[in-house]
């Protein structure tokens, strides 16, 4: 029975059940992002002190909803779609246990709806972190648990598909790098979800009265093994998608399979230590523990990210140079398809993730520097650079690829799509920079009123802090407009986009040929061949293959070093603490 179709534009093989599952997961992700985006507007317009839109209780409810929908539901639904793509589609293999996959999806939907109901009722405004002993309604925790179980099933379906592909020999040699990266994300996801279960199940039992106390420090330690590590799933997925898009857009290949895979391996080995990032100014842990864990054992996971930071644009540069774009250091980059949102979204995400997200993350994760940063606006400044631009914009870029390839629709309002990554990242960059600034001035995160209305005592943040929050507000509104543009293009394409029958030539510009119309007419896809061998002198020989990328990497390093020591300088100016 034929169950595969070939995408005539990209040449990807889609297994029927995998395809449907990718579609529903992607749609659920976009709906979650819509909820998160609406909530974002409420958050940003309240923290912009001159507007101060929402009353306190609504603000905390909306902030909780924003965090959970954006950080958990949007990214994980999308990641499940990515996992199915990276296994079934890339390996040209049928999906393992589609019924289980559907059950996982159903559990995720039930969990997400249940949790959203708890939050929107206004009785579970406990923030995404739900720190005990503050208590949410039982179905807040139960929703998260069901969602996590569903996602776990998705992970095992992915692993099962890899096993089937291997047994049925649908590919030659080792699995592709992108699939390897997705496997990394899955392994981290399993660790993460297990940590989530270990802490959320007792917390749920506590909320219905079967357990009478949850230790607050233990909760923080294990919750963050879930909360922070789940961001590392995003990272592994995001980097895999970067490699995928470099391959699709430029027919690039990794600079070195060995180095890129080693870097993914470092993620698996060390990223899970990141729980410590949140406990640096907590009682109960020793400095030795804090230093070892916060640095991922000597920053080996940071090393991995720096390697990907060179390898992804480097592979793109090498591919572009091969096409003859060899002038100067940056012709390859200048002549990249900047008008294609798949590319612009991906590249902006990469740059902003590295320069803003990566550097600030390491700085604030330094044991002592965390003293001047913990729980200030600096923290959301950092993770909007990593998750809201890095992961989210990467997923948005991938969506623009999936609309024609997976959904077989033409982009709705292509001009809007073309500008969307620029609007979104400009707004986000502004938001991030001013949140970092406000955080440096000590402005608290998760705080309804920086004017402290109604407090018995009084304190005024400097005027600059108010100005920075206002500018962050403007940036945030711009980012919400950019996010809305994404939703309009995506939903519009699915509802009104012209159906693509045969090849629409969308990928002709990337040098891919039209293959076949969209019908499930393939019993068994052709075996996935190894990549073509490169001639020896191209790599590993004298001279730099990617000098432009190396220059960019050095720029990153110099910014990193300067900014790192500026923060030590700032720390040395505060009161001595022993």
């Amino acid at each position, binding site marked *: 029975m034929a169950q595969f179709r070939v995408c005539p534009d990209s040449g990807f093989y889609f297994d029927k059940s995998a395809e449907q599952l990718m579609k529903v997961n992607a749609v659920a992700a976009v709906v979650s992002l819509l909820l998160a985006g609406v909530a974002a507007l409420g958050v940003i317009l309240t923290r912009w002190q001159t507007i101060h839109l929402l009353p306190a209780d609504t603000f905390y409810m909306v902030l909780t909803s924003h965090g959970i929908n954006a950080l958990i539901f949007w990214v994980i639904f999308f990641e499940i779609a990515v996992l199915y793509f990276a296994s079934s589609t890339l390996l040209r293999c049928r999906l393992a246990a589609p019924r289980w996959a559907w059950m996982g999806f159903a559990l995720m939907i039930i969990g997400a709806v249940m949790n959203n109901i708890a939050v929107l009722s206004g009785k579970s405004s406990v923030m995404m972190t739900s720190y005990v002993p503050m208590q949410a309604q039982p179905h807040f925790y139960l929703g998260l648990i069901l969602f996590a179980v569903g996602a776990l099933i998705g992970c095992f379906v992915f692993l099962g598909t890899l096993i089937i592909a291997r047994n049925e020999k649908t590919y030659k040699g080792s699995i592709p790098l992108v699939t390897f990266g997705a496997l990394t994300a899955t392994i981290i996801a399993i660790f993460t979800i297990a940590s989530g279960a270990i802490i959320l199940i007792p917390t749920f039992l506590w909320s219905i009265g079967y357990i009478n106390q949850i230790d607050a420090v233990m909760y923080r330690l294990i919750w963050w093994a879930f909360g922070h590590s789940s961001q590392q799933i995003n990272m592994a997925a995001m980097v895999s998608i970067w490699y995928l898009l470099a391959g699709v857009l430029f027919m690039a290949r990794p600079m*070195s*399979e060995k180095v890129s895979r080693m870097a993914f391996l470092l993620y698996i080995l060390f990223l899970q230590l990141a729980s410590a990032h949140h406990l640096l100014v907590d009682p109960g842990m020793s400095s030795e523990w804090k230093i070892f864990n916060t640095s991922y054992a000597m920053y080996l996971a940071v090393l991995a990210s720096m390697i990907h930071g060179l390898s992804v644009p480097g592979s793109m540069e090498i591919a572009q140079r091969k096409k003859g774009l060899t002038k100067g250091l940056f012709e390859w980059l200048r002549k990249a398809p900047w008008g294609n949102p798949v590319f612009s979204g991906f590249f902006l995400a990469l740059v902003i993730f590295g320069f803003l997200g990566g550097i600030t993350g390491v700085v604030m994760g330094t*044991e002592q520097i965390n003293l001047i940063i913990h729980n200030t606006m600096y923290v959301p400044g950092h993770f909007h650079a990593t998750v809201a631009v890095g992961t989210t914009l990467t997923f948005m870029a991938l969506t623009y690829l999936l609309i024609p390839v997976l959904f077989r629709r033409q982009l709705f309002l292509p001009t809007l799509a073309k500008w969307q990554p620029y609007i979104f990242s400009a707004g986000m960059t502004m938001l991030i920079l001013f949140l970092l600034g406000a955080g440096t*001035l000590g402005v608290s995160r998760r705080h309804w009123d920086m004017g402290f209305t109604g407090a018995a005592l009084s304190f005024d943040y400097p005027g600059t802090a108010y100005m920075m929050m206002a500018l962050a507000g403007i940036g945030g509104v711009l980012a919400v407009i950019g996010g809305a543009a994404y939703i309009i293009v995506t939903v519009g394409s699915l509802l009104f986009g012209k159906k693509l029958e045969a090849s629409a030539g969308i990928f002709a510009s990337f040098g891919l040929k039209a293959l076949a119309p969209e019908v499930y007419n393939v019993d068994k896809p052709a075996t996935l061949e190894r990549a073509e061998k490169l001639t020896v002198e191209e790599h590993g020989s004298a001279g730099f293959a990617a000098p432009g990328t190396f220059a960019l990497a050095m720029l990153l390093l110099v910014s990193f070093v300067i900014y790192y020591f500026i923060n030590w300088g700032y720390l040395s100016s505060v009161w001595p603490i022993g």
Partner: protein
Amino acid sequence: MTTFQPPAERIWWKTPLGKEEILWIGIALVWCLIMFFMMPFWHVYGKQNLSNEAYQTTPAKFKARVDEMVEKYQTGEEGGVPIVTPPAGSDIYLLGRLWQWYPILELEKDKSYRLHLSSLDWQHGFSLQPVNINLQVIPGYEMVIKLTPDQSGDFAIVCNEYCGIGHHMMLGKMIVKE
């Protein structure tokens, strides 16, 4: 079409690396090690470090010690909160509760104190402004830090861990005298 194809070489882990990769990995590794050793270095030569001295406690036990200090050294009151002037070098106590920091501590500049911090109910965040020192305050745990104010004036203690609807009203004070 290559990042999503199997590697060209069957033995891909033996292919040689490009120059920029070797160089970059070397530089990045050195930088990672520098950042790692900065933390122990600062413990030895820097002045801003947590001793990470902490004890398990209970709200009742901690409150009793705070009350004892307030009774002994109270020198005034502001906004319904007692102002306490403990002797230089002593153990001083600050508790967080919904939605108040208690009491107001009056300290001497350039003198060291052992500050004990805990919460009576939910988690709170000790954020000393505008100095910008931030600590997590957790019920059931008593954190001790040695604090040496080197500026005089009035300082605010903002709660920067979300603690419910009155979170924004949870504002304390610390006074440092010349």
